[in-house]
């Protein structure tokens, strides 16, 4: 059990309940279909010291292929997906993630983004949050 594995698993399950597209944990190398959501553990620092709780930084990306000829309304679908994910990452909604096993999120201390980047016809928008977390069922 590691913070990366538990945190990504918790976010994957939580976000999958919010959107009707695939949610992947970890790197975008595993993407098999778009539009999709990718939840990635960026890093963490212990807070408070000696305790084992971590301030965890997670990035959540929404990825879509914007090809209006091949997939009409792709941008509209992407926007709705982004809105749903953004709402899900704010408090108090995000506290529902605490139904996950061996994972607890106390709150969100930092919420940044939305950062947008494109690669060909692929549009990726990323929200980054930092949250004090613990691995336990509280």
């Amino acid at each position, binding site marked *: 059990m590691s913070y990366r594995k538990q945190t990504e698993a918790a976010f994957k399950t939580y976000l999958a309940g919010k959107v009707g597209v695939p949610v992947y944990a970890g790197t975008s190398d595993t993407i098999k279909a778009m539009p999709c959501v990718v939840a990635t553990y960026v890093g963490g620092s212990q*807070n*408070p*010291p*000696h*305790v084992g*709780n971590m301030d965890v930084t997670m990035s959540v990306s929404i990825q879509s292929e914007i090809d209006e000829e091949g997939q009409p309304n792709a941008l509209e679908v992407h926007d709705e997906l982004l809105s749903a994910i953004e709402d899900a990452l704010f408090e108090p909604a995000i506290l529902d993630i605490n139904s996950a096993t061996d994972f607890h999120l*106390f*709150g969100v*201390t930092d919420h940044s983004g939305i950062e947008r980047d494109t690669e060909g016809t692929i549009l990726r928008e990323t929200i980054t949050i930092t949250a*004090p977390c613990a691995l*336990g069922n*509280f």
Partner: protein
Amino acid sequence: MAATIKGKPLPYGTKTDGGILTLRVKRGSSDIYYGNMYASEVRVSYDSDSNTAVDSNGETISYCVYNRRRTLSLTGIVINTSGGTPDAVNDDLATANATFGTAIMPGDDLFVGYGTTSEWDEVHAEDADTNINNTQSTGGTGNYVITSVEKTRSNTSFAEWSITAIEHITAVVSDNDTSDN
């Protein structure tokens, strides 16, 4: 060739080998709080009152110190402890909130230690006792008495207690912090 210095042993953190302290707060013979604290800061200070005698020229010829006292300031996060007071049978947020809400007050006795069976040499308040459970004071030293308590909840931080306690040192004062007196 100059020697290369690669490190020195130094006291580190709020306590050697980790920052978890044991606190026991008593009101009379009753435990009000008995559990742990992740201390973020510990301060021990010594001070006193003083008086001087002067000669006919106004020169100080004698300096007297009295009312020596030791003041302990603790800041940290209190945590659930199974078997403590309150008893954290359930290691959950409800118990954590109840623990934080424990009503300690100025005037309560305070004992602080490394664990359940050993006192903390640098701050302990008793004479020749080595157990935090032992509430007796002998040899002229007193126990810590809490003089102020502050509980802090702030946005994006874990809730903390800040406690200030005082011990009047009425008799023997030893040569260093780690002696019993």
